[in-house]
């Protein structure tokens, strides 16, 4: 069903499925569901397989002007060690991954806690499309049209207390479904975290879609984090646990190699990885002879986020 999207021209979600087909498909699905609430929910396209179209409005304020990478590049070039360490392993090994039913546990320093179905988690949120830069710690980059909603809107619903200084996220631990979790290349489950003000920044996106459609499994379905001013590994995938905590969480890559990967992991051309330079990056999909381009501080989002780190030595807190 996937079409090879042209790289030079951006395609808005409404171009992907003609409206008549879109409506009839929705009606068919809706007819099979008894509950009105479920119907309303389904109408926006959640609860479906990857590639189902979502109802989305583009957030122009938070979208870059550059042309996004092709759907094929974004969905076949992934770092997702739960499905293998090779870039094409996730697209090959994640196809049978079950993303429904899916539940998310929210607990820690907050007034509202519990385990919620993904449907309940997503229901109140309108979806936006944001075309973000993506900079991997391995010094390559892409442009990706994500679909999601601000993490801040989600977190506020659970009424974090004044003790909540950080948010910790965990990926599903299910070695039966995730072959990488049977090995010990990293400590499972994958754990990430943000300082509260980072989590509440409007750029921080809870992501459920890509190119106007339900997120492919290999990109972190059903529910992942995108923090565009940080290296890609902060964007934890297949989240099933969110916890408000008082002290800084120990994150997976920082635990694995503390001298190479920090908690903050802000994109910073002035702080090299011990084994390679972060001053520049290779842009996936660019001409073979012209892929190298300079890396921008905070991945180009300095105007929005540099203020979060005033007075901090970013060489120490890398």
């Amino acid at each position, binding site marked *: 069903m996937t079409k090879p999207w042209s790289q030079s021209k951006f395609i808005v979600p409404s171009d992907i499925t003609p409206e008549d087909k879109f409506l009839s498909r929705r009606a068919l699905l809706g007819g099979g569901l008894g509950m009105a609430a479920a119907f309303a929910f389904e109408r926006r396209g959640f609860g479906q397989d990857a590639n189902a179209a979502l109802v989305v409005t583009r957030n122009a304020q938070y979208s870059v002007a550059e042309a996004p*990478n092709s759907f*094929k*590049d974004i969905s*076949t*070039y992934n770092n997702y*060690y739960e499905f293998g*360490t090779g*870039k*094409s392993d996730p697209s090959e090994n994640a196809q049978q991954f079950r993303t429904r039913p899916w539940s998310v546990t929210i607990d820690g320093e907050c007034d509202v806690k519990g385990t919620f179905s993904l449907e309940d988690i997503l229901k109140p949120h309108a979806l936006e499309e944001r075309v973000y830069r993506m900079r991997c710690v*391995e010094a*390559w980059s892409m442009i990706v049209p994500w679909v999601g909603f601000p993490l801040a809107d989600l977190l506020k619903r659970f009424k974090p207390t004044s003790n909540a200084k950080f948010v910790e996220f965990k990926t599903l631990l299910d070695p039966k479904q995730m072959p990488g979790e049977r090995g010990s*290349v*990293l400590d499972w489950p994958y754990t990430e975290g943000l300082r509260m003000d980072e989590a509440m920044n409007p750029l921080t996106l809870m992501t459920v879609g890509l190119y106007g459609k339900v997120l492919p499994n290999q990109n972190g379905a059903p529910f992942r984090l995108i923090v565009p001013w940080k290296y890609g590994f902060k964007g934890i995938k297949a989240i099933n646990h969110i916890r408000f905590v008082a002290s800084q969480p120990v994150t997976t890559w920082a635990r*694995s*190699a503390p001298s190479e990967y920090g908690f903050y992991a802000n994109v910073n051309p002035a702080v*090299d990885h011990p*084994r*390679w*330079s972060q*001053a*520049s990056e*290779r842009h*996936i*999909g660019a001409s*073979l*002879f*012209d*892929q*190298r381009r300079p890396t921008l501080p905070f991945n180009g989002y300095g105007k929005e986020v540099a203020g979060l780190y005033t007075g901090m030595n970013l060489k120490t807190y890398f």
Partner: protein
Amino acid sequence: MTAKIRSLLKAAVFVACLGPAIYLLVGAFGLWSVSLGADPVHTMLHTCGNWALKFLLITLCMTPLRDLTHTTIWLRFRRMFGLFAFFYAMLHLAVYIIFDQSGHLETVWQDIIKRPYITIGMLALLLLVPLAVTSTAAMQRRLRHRWILLHRLIYLIAVLGVWHYWWGVKKDIFEPLLFACALAVLLGYRLYKRLRSSGKVRESTDPIRA
């Protein structure tokens, strides 16, 4: 084996050794729907480096194979495999400079002096050059026993090459570990032979026996 069959066999092995380079060339132009994936530069870089190491190890297999099979046919391929190791190592370097670094020589130089895994890799490449230059039969005759000494550099080069790979990967050391194990076996075999023959008269200077 007649000379004719031998040269046919050599030609066939030669073409087979070119396989990875042909695959990359075809994939880079997207011919016959061969694709190098979303990151063709990484595919080229990795494939060339990987085959350079494989050919180094294959070269180091020839002497043990002669010993095990009691036939010297293996040694007739040793130079070819060694030169293919050199060929893929040079392609690896060319892809790194031209595509990975987009030809920015200052950043290449910064990489070489600042990043130990690149320093090691570059050293291995440089050490391969004299071996390739002196690989002809005429040079072999001219240098006599010094040729054997010089070509023992391949042991050091193989260690540096595997080390370079090991330090370059982010986390998944499985493949570098395989290379390291294979190299340990090949070097261990030579150490074992040396220890066993110690006390005996030093072996002849016939390069075939090196």
